[in-house]
C-alpha cells in the first residue's frame, strides 16, 4: 500500500480541513455556509470511496462480471446529499433574513449590534 493508493482519502482530509477552517475562521455568513458545504462534501467523497472494490464494475447485473462495487455507501450518501442541500438552503435563507434584519452579513457587525441590544435590555 503506497501513499498514492489512499489518494481519495488525502483529498477527503484536505477538503475537510479546508471546509472546517472556513467555517471557523470566516466572518462572512455566506462563506461560513460554503465552508460547511465543502466540509460535508469531503464526507460524501469518503463514503463514495469506501464503496469502491478494486477491479469491480458498476453494481448492475450482467453476465460478464462477478465482481462489483458496493452500492450501499452510494445510496447512503445520496440521502446525506439531500440533507446537505436542505441544510444549505435553510442556512442561506437564514442569511437573507439576517441581512434584512441587521443590514449586514458580517459576523463581527452582527455580534456588536447584538451585544448592544443585550446591554440595552
Amino acid at each position, binding site marked *: 500500500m503506497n501513499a498514492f493508493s489512499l489518494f481519495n482519502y488525502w483529498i477527503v482530509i484536505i477538503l475537510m480541513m479546508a471546509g*472546517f477552517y472556513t*467555517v471557523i475562521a470566516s466572518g462572512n*455568513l455566506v462563506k*461560513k455556509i460554503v465552508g*460547511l458545504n465543502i*466540509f*460535508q462534501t469531503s*464526507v460524501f467523497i*469518503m*463514503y463514495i470511496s*469506501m464503496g469502491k472494490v478494486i477491479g469491480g464494475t458498476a453494481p448492475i447485473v450482467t453476465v460478464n462480471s462477478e465482481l462489483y462495487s458496493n452500492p450501499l*455507501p452510494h445510496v*447512503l450518501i445520496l*440521502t*446525506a446529499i439531500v*440533507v446537505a442541500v*436542505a*441544510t444549505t438552503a*435553510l*442556512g442561506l435563507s*437564514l*442569511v437573507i*433574513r*439576517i441581512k434584512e*434584519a*441587521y443590514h449586514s452579513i458580517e459576523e463581527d457587525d*452582527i455580534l456588536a449590534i*447584538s451585544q448592544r*441590544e443585550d446591554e440595552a*435590555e
Partner: protein
Amino acid sequence: MISHHLPALQVVVPLMAAPLCFLLGRYRRLGWILSTLVSWLCLWIAVRLAFQVADGGQIQYAFGGWAPPWGIEYRVDQLNVLVLLIVSGIASVMFPYSWSSVQNEVDPEQQPLFFTCMLLCLAGLLGITITGDAFNLFVLLEISSLSTYTLISLGRDRRALTASFQYLIMGTIGATFILIGVGILYMLTGTLNMADLSDRIGEIGESRALQAGFGFLIVGIGLKLAMFPLHLWLPNAYAFAPSIVSAFIAATATKVAVYVMVRYLFTIFGHEFSFSAMYIHWLLIPVGLIAVLFTSIVAVFQRDIKRMLAYSSVAQIGYMLVGIGLVSTTGLTATLLHLFNHALMKGALFLSMGAVCYRLGNTLIDNMDGIGRQMPWTMGAFVAGGLSLIGVPLTVGFISKWYLILAALEKGWWPIAVIVVLGSLIAVIYVWRVVEAAYLHQRPDQSVTVVEAPASLLVPTWILVLANYYFGIDASFTTGFTSSAATTLFGAP
C-alpha cells in the same frame, strides 16, 4: 394487525401529519387541532409499546419486511421506550399549550409552518429514539435538527435569527461528525444495524480506525447534547426561540441526544470498549462537573430568565454525563432517571415562563417585580418547578440527585457528591432571584398591570408540575424502569 406495526406508526404518524398540517394552510386552528391529536396518538402508541416491553422484552420491527441487518430495523427495549414516553408525553402536554402562546408570539402567516415544523421535530426525535439503524439515526437527527432551526428562527426578536444560524452551523458540524463516525464503523464492520454493529465491533479488538470513529461520534453527539465546552449554541437558541419551542426542545431534544450517547457507549461500542479501553469516563466526569459548577454560576447572572434556564439545562446535562461516567448501574440509573425527571422540571419551568411572556412580552427579571401577586398560578408553577430543579425531597429532582450521590459514594468518590450538592445550592440562588423579584418586590407604580395567564396555558403547566410531584412521591415506576434498563445495558456485552 395494527398493534404489530406500532413501532413504525410511532414515527410515521407525525411524519405524515406534518405535510397535511402544512396543506391545511390558513385553517390554522385545524392544523393545531390535528397536531394536538397526533401528539396524543403518539403518546398512546408509546404507552402501548411500554406495556409490551415492561417485562424486559424487546420488540423488533423490520421496516418494509426487509430482514435486518440489510433492512432498517426498529427496535424497542426498556431504555428507549422510556425516552419515547418522555418525548411523546411532553409533546402531548405542550401541543395543547401551543395555540395561545403561538398566537401571541408568531406571525399568523407563519403559523401553519410552525405546527408543521413542530410535528417534523416530534417525528425526528421519536425516530432517533426508536431506530435500530445507525444511518437511519443520522437522517432522523437531521430531520429534527432542521425543523428545530426553523422553529427557533420564528422567534420575534431578530437575535433569534443569529441564534438559529449559530445552532445550524454547530449542529451541522455535529451531525457531520456523527456521519463520519458511522462511515468509519461501516468501513470496519460492513453493517449499519446497531445490534449487528455491537457484535462485530467486539470481534475487531484493538484498532486505530475504531478509536477514531469513536472519537468522531462522541464529539458529534457531544455537540448535539450541549456537552460542556460545546454548549455555546444552546443559551441563545433557548432564549430567543418562541416560548413553546424553548420548552419543547429543552425538555426533549437534549434528552434524546443523551439517549443516543448512552446507546452508542453501551449498546454499540459496549461498556468494556468505551470505559476500559477508551477511558471515556475520564472525559465525561470532568466535563460534567465543570458544567455543573460553571454554567450554574453563569445562570445566576442572567437577566433573561429563559436564558438562565438554558444555562441551568447545560448544568443538568452535566449531572447526566457524570452519571454515565461513574460506570455503575446506579450511576446509569441516575442518568436515566434525570433524563426523565429533567424533562418534567424544565418543561414545567419553561411553560410557566411562556405564560409570563404571554402577559409581559418578555421574560426579563427586571420586569417581573411583584408579579407573584398578580399571576399567582403562573409563578406558583415556577416556584414548584424550581423546587424540583433544586432537588427538594418529594420532587423528582430529589430522586435523581439522590441516586447520583449514592452512585458517587458507592465508588468512594465523595468529591463528586460534594460538587453535586454544591450545584444544587447554586440552583437555590438562581431560583431564589426570581422568587425574590416576583414576591418580595413591589410592582412599580407606572408599570402595566398584568392579570393571570389564561387556563389554556395554566392547565398544561400544572399538569407538568404535578407530574414532578407525582413521580417524586411515587418513584416506583421510573426507578423500576430505569434500573432494569441500566442492568440490561451492563449485562449485555
